[in-house]
């Protein structure tokens, strides 16, 4: 029987040991793992992982049901096309930060998208205090219209009180 790739998403209250419990259940069920990204966001556990499994969406959900329920995790499974070995190489890294307010991400990413940015990786945090939160965002991506176009877009954003830095990534292959 053919193995299919699925994207498994799990979200719930964070606690130690979730990854071990889930991956153990998947392993016992004959699954193979691909790429994964786990983040604690706020107080929540979140993970998205590529899982290779012989059966259907339903059978993968059944495989994990007991474990997910006992850990209090909400589960979502999608069948996905394609598999591993499709990495795209980022050529630019951006750091954006400023006093937190609604619209920073929308504003910055819209300007960057118009200047040709294809985002491959994005992670953001809110730090500071409750009274004065600060927003910090890291982005890696591909500058499809060149790094200069992105820099010009950032320069405009920066006039509005958002700090932003752009660094070209020149991957050394040896």
């Amino acid at each position, binding site marked *: 029987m053919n193995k299919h790739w699925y994207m498994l998403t799990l979200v719930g209250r964070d606690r130690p040991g979730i990854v071990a419990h889930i991956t153990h259940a998947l392993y016992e069920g004959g699954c193979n793992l691909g790429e994964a990204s786990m983040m604690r966001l706020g107080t929540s556990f979140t993970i998205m992982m590529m899982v290779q499994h012989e059966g259907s969406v339903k059978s993968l959900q059944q495989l994990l049901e007991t474990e997910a329920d006992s850990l209090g995790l909400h589960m979502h499974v999608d069948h996905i096309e394609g598999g591993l070995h499709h990495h795209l190489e*980022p050529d630019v890294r951006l750091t954006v930060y400023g006093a937190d307010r609604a619209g920073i991400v929308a504003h910055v990413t819209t300007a960057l998208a118009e200047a040709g940015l294809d985002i491959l*990786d994005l992670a953001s945090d809110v730090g500071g205090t409750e009274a004065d939160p600060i927003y910090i965002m890291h982005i890696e991506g591909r500058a499809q219209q060149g790094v200069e176009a992105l820099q010009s877009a950032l320069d405009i954003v920066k006039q509005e009180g958002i700090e932003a830095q752009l*660094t070209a*990534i*020149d*991957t*050394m*292959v*040896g």
Partner: protein
Amino acid sequence: MSLDILKYPDERLKRVSTEVETFDDELRRFITVLEEAMRAGPGGVGIAAPQVGRFQRIAIVDVSSKPKMVNHGCMILINPEITEWEGMAMGREGCMSVPDFTGNVIRAEKVTFTAFDEFGEQHEYRSEGYEARAIQHEVDHLDGMLFLDRLVSRRTDLFQRKVYQKKKD
């Protein structure tokens, strides 16, 4: 005939290479084909002999194809030895022996090193930036190390270096 590149998880990439003692025509012929192998790889700016299954301390670095990078042209590095490290910088690395993966690695910004050329003459060099990174990557190969051994989290960022200038009186 071009040489095949060993790919991790081939255990031989973890071997420590031995010093070159004889600088002869055979060595020079090998260096020619090693350079061909480097240039055959997409975007390759360096190669080390163990990557083609010869466990001797031989490497080639040539970053002259990269615009704006300070460089020494094509460097033949035999028994290279880094003697000084200065500063640190994070950069992205890939490797012909580790296809379809790149990662962030912290390296010294500047290095001073000695190496013999293919005729057995010793030279001292100072490299910085991208070329220094390539040198450190290749010397690692000679010690059985891959950039995978030095990965830092992809969420890690080194803050851009501020240049502090002394106040003029």
